[in-house]
């Protein structure tokens, strides 16, 4: 009895399924789906994207490879520095230079920048331990020569003050994340970075003022001369021997021009970073951050050498920038040509014999 009922039910369901399948085929054949589509038709102002396309989107990439397609899409090869500089944003749909800029900044500049100043300090310490302070051979004579006037000294220390503030705040901005955050915490780094950014932006324009002032006050006497070649060949006398020089030696002149030229780059890039709307291409700003950071590390590194020679490294040097005067024996030893020029006496002959 039960089997009879099950068999009957199966037969009924099979007939119903067959019927529904036939109905679906009939509906499809007579365009019932069109009726369904019309019931949810698009608004009157809609655009039918299928209009005009006969064969569908086959061979969309044409004969280009995937890499060529995406390279063109993003507007040039981001690994090509020339293209990075020359490519115009109008031609690009998508730029990936930001990713490469970020990698350069994170993986190279932030990772290694701090080692350059530290390396210079280590070299100076090593030199000082081996050679010691460079003494005035004849000792202080007690007689002095005017070397820098009051305006030169004020401009020098004005630049030194502004540079110190910019250097400290700049290093916190650049290296805070890898050097401060892991040890003092992200909150401390955030506070210091916020403060440094405000201070850096505030004192940046004063650096330009200081740069112009220093250039005007010190350019005279800082042009390179043939006698500077002797200074180079004798390594500045740092490893023995006397080196003749005029008012400024090759090292001082190089430092002056380094400050001026790199300072111009720092000023230009700093202005772009301070007023980013001056350019419409983001790559100028990316390039500016790289040049700004690189220039800063270069100046800070060499600055340690300048500070060393001006203070602990050479006896009598600091007087020139604090008092404006230097001892005559210091002048004879380190700037003999200048000594002869301003005194009219020979630097090699003893007092009273000339």
């Amino acid at each position, binding site marked *: 009895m039960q089997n009879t009922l099950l068999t009957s039910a199966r037969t009924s369901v099979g007939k119903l399924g067959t019927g529904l399948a036939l109905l679906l085929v009939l509906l499809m054949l007579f365009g019932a789906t069109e009726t369904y589509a019309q019931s949810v038709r698009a608004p009157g102002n809609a655009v039918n994207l299928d209009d005009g396309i006969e064969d569908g989107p086959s061979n969309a990439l044409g004969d280009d490879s995937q890499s060529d397609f995406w390279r063109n899409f993003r507007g040039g090869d981001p690994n090509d520095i020339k293209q990075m500089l020359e490519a115009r944003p109008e031609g690009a749909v998508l730029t990936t230079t930001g990713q490469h800029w970020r990698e350069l900044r994170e993986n190279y500049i932030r990772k290694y920048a701090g080692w350059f100043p530290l390396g210079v300090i280590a070299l100076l310490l090593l030199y000082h331990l081996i050679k010691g302070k460079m003494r005035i051979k004849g000792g202080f004579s007690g007689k002095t020569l005017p070397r820098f006037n009051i305006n030169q000294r*004020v401009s020098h220390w004005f630049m030194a003050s502004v540079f110190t503030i910019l250097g400290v705040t700049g290093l916190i901005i650049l290296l805070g994340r890898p050097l401060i955050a892991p040890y003092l915490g992200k909150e401390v780094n955030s506070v210091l970075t916020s403060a440094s950014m405000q201070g850096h932006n505030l004192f940046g324009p004063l650096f330009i003022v200081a740069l112009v002032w220093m250039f005007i006050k010190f350019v005279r006497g800082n042009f390179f001369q043939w006698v500077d070649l002797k200074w180079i060949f004798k390594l500045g006398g740092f490893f023995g021997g006397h080196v003749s020089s005029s008012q400024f030696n090759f090292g001082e002149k190089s430092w002056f021009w380094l400050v001026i030229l790199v300072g111009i780059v720092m000023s230009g890039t700093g202005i772009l970073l301070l007023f980013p709307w001056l350019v419409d291409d983001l790559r100028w700003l990316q390039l500016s951050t790289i040049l700004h950071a690189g220039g800063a590390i270069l100046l800070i590194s060499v600055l340690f050498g300048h500070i060393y020679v001006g203070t602990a490294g050479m006896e009598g040097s600091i007087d020139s920038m604090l008092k404006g005067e230097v001892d005559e024996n210091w002048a004879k030893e380190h700037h003999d040509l200048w000594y002869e020029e301003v005194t009219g006496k020979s630097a090699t002959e003893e007092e009273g014999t000339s």
Partner: protein
Amino acid sequence: MTFLQFVEGPLFYVAAAIFVVGVVYRLIGILRLGGERDLARPNGSATGGAILTVLRHFVPRRTFWRGSSFHFVAGYAFHLGLFVLLLLAAPHVAFLQERVLGFGWPVLPHWAFILTAEVAFAGLIMLWVRRFVDPVQKLISTSGDYAATILTFLVMLTGCLALQESHVALRATHMVFVDIWLIYFPFSRLIHTFTFFFSRAQTGATYGRRGAKL
């Protein structure tokens, strides 16, 4: 009470009270010093001499221009900059309105604030540098001069570092230096903010009474 609330509240009010009482005490002390009565017949007006000297000394005489141009430029850059920042910076006006006066006034736009701060900082740094590289000025400078300069610099610097107003710690640091500055003010070289008027007036009155050409 947070640390910021403390330095902006009780400590600030105590510092401000010490500032006001201290300045008044110092000025009354100077006035009470008096002077010996001049029995000579006056050849001119002491009051006129005093007023004229107070005003004329704001600009150096032509004879002294060459030697004092640096101090004229740097001095005005710093002092005018500082007063503009003190009285017209938006956070200062908001603070005074909320905590002290109950009313405010128009403030500097942000760009003008930055420009004024740069002028003030340039002036202050130049004056400070000159103090230790000029042999004469170095000779007459005391530790009090350097302390006043450095403290004022730190007040200005911490204020500018807190400009983003995104960290309580920076605002609190600025307020700590402001409070110290207010307490230190009456008993230091900073009192010249008020006493310059007395010294000029005294000199002007003396020479004005004698009929000297001022």
